[in-house]
């Protein structure tokens, strides 16, 4: 069938309300009698919490309560929060308690919650608390923390190792022994935070009549949050409703369940009044999870044509003070390294190390940017050493399209063997290079050099597992009004979930997009859900929408055929009407069919007819869906200051079938901006005592409109053979290879100086230091 809505550039349904300031973010929700909360947090990276004296705080007018760990319900007082992703390799499965009661392990860890008439007063009260700590030594650097006898991040643990695991296949010893060339690299990366413009937020309210607890949270995962909260409150899950309303960006950190999401409901229950907590930006810098430092020590073995024989190495991952999501992030990094290349033998040892910093959980890319950076730096190294073009080296090593599905040899984080389902990597690279003018760049570079300008080009490839399970359900229900109600556990933090799911449902059901009424991110609207992360919603919720829509379509046709007295094959559905294609084309509107589907009280339904016009589908993907792409970055470097400007950026990406090109392009562009940030600007810095040094937007540098060019984006669609829509995920691909492409471009711009970089973020100061060491300034600056 020719698609009307699928693949169409439908304008976003979310936009009009947001543009008029009528969004409904958590802080926009106001309840009668609502109080405001503020958390008291540890100023120390590692300390014993000795005492909290709230007398002065409670004396302030307008203060209602100061709650410490001992004031929380028994189920959450001393019980560490559940860890969602256990793994046998984890030897220290540490998670935090909701409020610290003994040891604090990172700056910002919450120790008390203050509730007052206004946030202003709550902060006054928090400042009036007298909290006593006994300081402990802090583990501030994972490279030190891994050593024997190192300062412990947790007093009672025998070491700082949270997990070690090995991923290997093939015979790397033989590969290296027989190699013509072996190159090794030490690579350091730091990713930083998600830094959505909306911070975290929680509003909780208890209804004494129904005994229901309703929580609004700026979360990516309300169903997961509800489960966690039920356990922590010791309540039946059905008494809790969690709602993710409009959420101002997620990017990963809002996917996990935080102590505040348990503390605020607990306090609301205790006080019998709604309580709202809006995180401020300073708290966000301290406590919202981030991705931490990774130190890689890797070597690649190639033959004399630059074909890879093997790759081996070691990854040291700083996981912060706790492991709320286990070790999936370093795991993802470790399995992503091979990427689109044939790597006959692979061996990576990973150590996940605890330090006294805020915990690490996925931020857009989730460990993949680091892995791609490692692989692509190695490829560039091979090219340079062998005197080959960087694109050519990659071509020689690509997995070819006829090799799909391709078994890499590892197990992916979805629990299944890492098998790339589809993709045409050579085509993607060729498309990107062509669009970027790669072949004519050398002329451009030479001409610039004559003007004293240093420009460079770099490329990077990636393969990304997306669409992770277990499921995301969609309910489609035709209402008596003729509108089509859709509910899903999928959530929306800007990725246009409402629009894309509407397109799919409208396509299947034959209604107008404007007739769809959708509820997202509300545990009250659909029984089971997971939420947004790992670029999973288009696959999971999209396919559920397809299946649910198909089922409702079938019923509409059956009902209409019966009502109009024609055969089912003579029924068309369009714009909310079922139309017979024969005779004088009688039609019946969906609303009336919905009424018919209810039957009549006391009367049996006709044989074969099911009740109602609705269906809930929970599509479960068999494995991850593998996207791929190539990025080409063009930069200009001011060799005197080290300043870098990204002048041009080209993307060829394959995220399978595209439901709405506008939205996918937006995701790619936004992802690239984040990648530029990671490459050049964003760095959460700590001192050696694990004290955070960059705790405001003045110190932590986000990319601005003047830093991010508009990308040229080429779509390549190799449909996913494993799901009925053929889709893959598109949310993170923009970020994943960007640092690699940009650092490569900087090296290329400075090639005459023969300087090399294996770190991100790469600062102007580092560039200048490298150029100075290479003698670049000798003639220019000395009198």
């Amino acid at each position: 069938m020719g698609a009307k809505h699928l693949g169409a550039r439908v304008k976003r349904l979310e936009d009009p309300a947001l543009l008029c300031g009528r969004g409904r973010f958590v802080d926009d929700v106001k309840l009668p009698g609502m109080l405001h909360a503020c958390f008291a947090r540890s100023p120390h990276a590692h300390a014993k919490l000795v005492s909290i004296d709230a007398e002065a705080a409670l004396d302030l007018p307008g203060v209602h309560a100061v709650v410490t760990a001992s004031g929380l319900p028994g189920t959450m007082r001393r019980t560490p929060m559940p860890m969602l992703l256990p793994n046998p390799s984890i030897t220290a499965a540490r998670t935090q308690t909701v409020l610290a009661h003994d040891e604090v392990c990172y700056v910002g860890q919450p120790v008390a919650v203050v509730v007052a008439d206004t946030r202003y007063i709550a902060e006054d009260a928090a400042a009036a608390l007298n909290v006593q700590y006994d300081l402990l030594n802090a583990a501030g650097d994972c490279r030190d923390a891994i050593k024997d006898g190192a300062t412990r991040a947790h007093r009672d643990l025998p070491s700082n190792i949270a997990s070690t695991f090995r991923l290997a296949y093939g015979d790397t010893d033989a590969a290296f022994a027989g190699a013509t060339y072996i190159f090794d690299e030490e690579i350091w990366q730091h990713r930083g935070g998600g830094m959505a413009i909306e911070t975290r937020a929680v509003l909780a309210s208890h209804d004494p009549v129904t005994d229901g607890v309703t929580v609004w949270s700026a979360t990516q995962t309300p169903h997961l949050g509800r489960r966690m909260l039920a356990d922590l409150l010791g309540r039946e899950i059905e008494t809790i409703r969690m709602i993710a309303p409009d959420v101002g960006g997620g990017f990963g950190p809002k996917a996990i369940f935080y102590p505040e999401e348990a503390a605020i409901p607990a306090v609301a229950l205790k006080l019998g009044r709604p309580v709202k907590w809006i995180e401020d930006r300073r708290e966000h810098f301290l406590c919202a999870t981030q991705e931490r430092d990774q130190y890689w020590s890797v070597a690649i073995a190639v033959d004399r044509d630059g074909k890879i024989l093997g790759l081996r190495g070691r990854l040291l991952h700083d996981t912060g003070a706790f492991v709320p999501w286990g070790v999936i992030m370093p795991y993802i990094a470790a399995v992503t390294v091979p990427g689109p290349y044939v790597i006959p033998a692979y061996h990576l040892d990973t150590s996940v190390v605890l330090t006294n910093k805020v915990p690490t959980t996925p931020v857009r890319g989730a460990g993949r940017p680091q892995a791609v950076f490692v692989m692509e730096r190695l490829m560039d190294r091979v090219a340079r050493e062998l005197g080959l073009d960087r694109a050519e080296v990659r071509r020689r090593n690509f997995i070819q399209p006829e090799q799909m599905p391709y078994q890499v040899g590892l197990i992916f984080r979805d629990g299944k063997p890492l098998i790339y389902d589809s993709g045409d990597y050579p085509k993607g690279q060729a498309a990107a290079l062509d669009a970027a003018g790669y072949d004519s760049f050398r002329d451009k570079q030479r001409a610039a050099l004559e003007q004293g300008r240093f420009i460079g080009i770099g490329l990077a490839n990636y393969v990304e597992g997306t669409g992770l399970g277990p499921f995301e359900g969609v309910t489609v229900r035709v209402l008596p009004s003729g509108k089509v109600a859709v509910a899903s556990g999928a959530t929306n933090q800007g990725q246009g979930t409402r629009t894309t799911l509407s397109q799919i449902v409208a396509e299947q059901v034959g209604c107008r997009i404007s007739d769809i009424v959708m509820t997202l991110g509300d545990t009250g609207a659909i029984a089971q859900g997971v939420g947004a992360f790992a670029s999973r919603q288009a696959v999971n919720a999209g396919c559920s929408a397809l299946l649910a829509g198909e089922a409702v379509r079938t019923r509409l046709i059956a009902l209409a055929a019966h009502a109009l007295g024609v055969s089912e094959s003579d029924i068309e559905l369009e714009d909310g009407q079922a139309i017979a294609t024969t005779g004088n084309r009688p039609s019946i509107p969906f609303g009336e069919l919905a009424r018919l589907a209810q039957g009549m009280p006391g009367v049996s339904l006709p044989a074969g007819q099911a009740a109602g016009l609705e269906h809930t589908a929970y599509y479960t993907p068999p494995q991850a869906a593998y996207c791929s792409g190539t990025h080409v970055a063009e930069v200009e470097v001011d060799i005197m200051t080290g300043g870098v400007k990204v002048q041009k950026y080209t993307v060829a990406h394959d995220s399978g079938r595209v439901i709405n090109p506008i939205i996918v392009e937006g995701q790619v562009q936004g992802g690239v901006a984040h990648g530029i940030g990671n490459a050049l600007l964003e760095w959460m810095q700590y001192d050696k005592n694990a004290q955070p040094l960059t705790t405001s937007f003045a110190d932590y540098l986000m990319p601005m409109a003047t830093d991010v060019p508009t990308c040229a984006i080429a779509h390549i669609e190799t449909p996913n053979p494993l799901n009925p829509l053929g889709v893959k995920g598109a949310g993170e691909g923009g970020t994943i290879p960007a640092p690699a492409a940009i650092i490569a471009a900087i090296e290329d711009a400075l090639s005459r100086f023969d300087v090399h970089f294996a770190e991100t973020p790469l600062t102007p100061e580092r560039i200048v230091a490298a150029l100075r060491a290479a003698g670049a300034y000798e003639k220019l600056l000395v009198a």
Partner: protein
Amino acid sequence: MRKQAARITVNGKSYARVVEPRMTLADFLRHELNFTGTHLGCEHGVCGACTVLVDGRTARSCLMFAVQANGSEVVTVEGLSSDGQLSALQQAFIDNHGLQCGFCTPGMLMTLTELLREKSDPSEQDVREALSGNLCRCTGYAGIVAAALDAARRLRGGAATGAGIDGS
């Protein structure tokens, strides 16, 4: 400390309130007057989500106290459209995918409203520089820049250029 009276015109209507001096203009708009379209992203004057117009000029409402705006005219995002009709700039945002989560969007609109009032034919560089005081984490700015240039074109009497279609 001592509450003070402030009379502020917001979106053309005058409001008299008695407030604590430390209440920021942003909080006054959001909580006293229920204009929740203005958002807080950092409260230290960098992200620009709180941008409003004060006496015709953009200002970070997180860095002003409501009492400072006594006697002033403030325009927020809610004041950009009238009777449900979107402004040319707002429509251009829809047509050019100028927003994703929408949290930074009101600030973007206020900044661009000031720019387009002063420059009827801004260059892309003009637009990007004007926007440098507004952070966006979702869009990578391309759609916002395209929307600004498209709106400028429309306001000059030219044709719209957005590449989207209306769902139906």
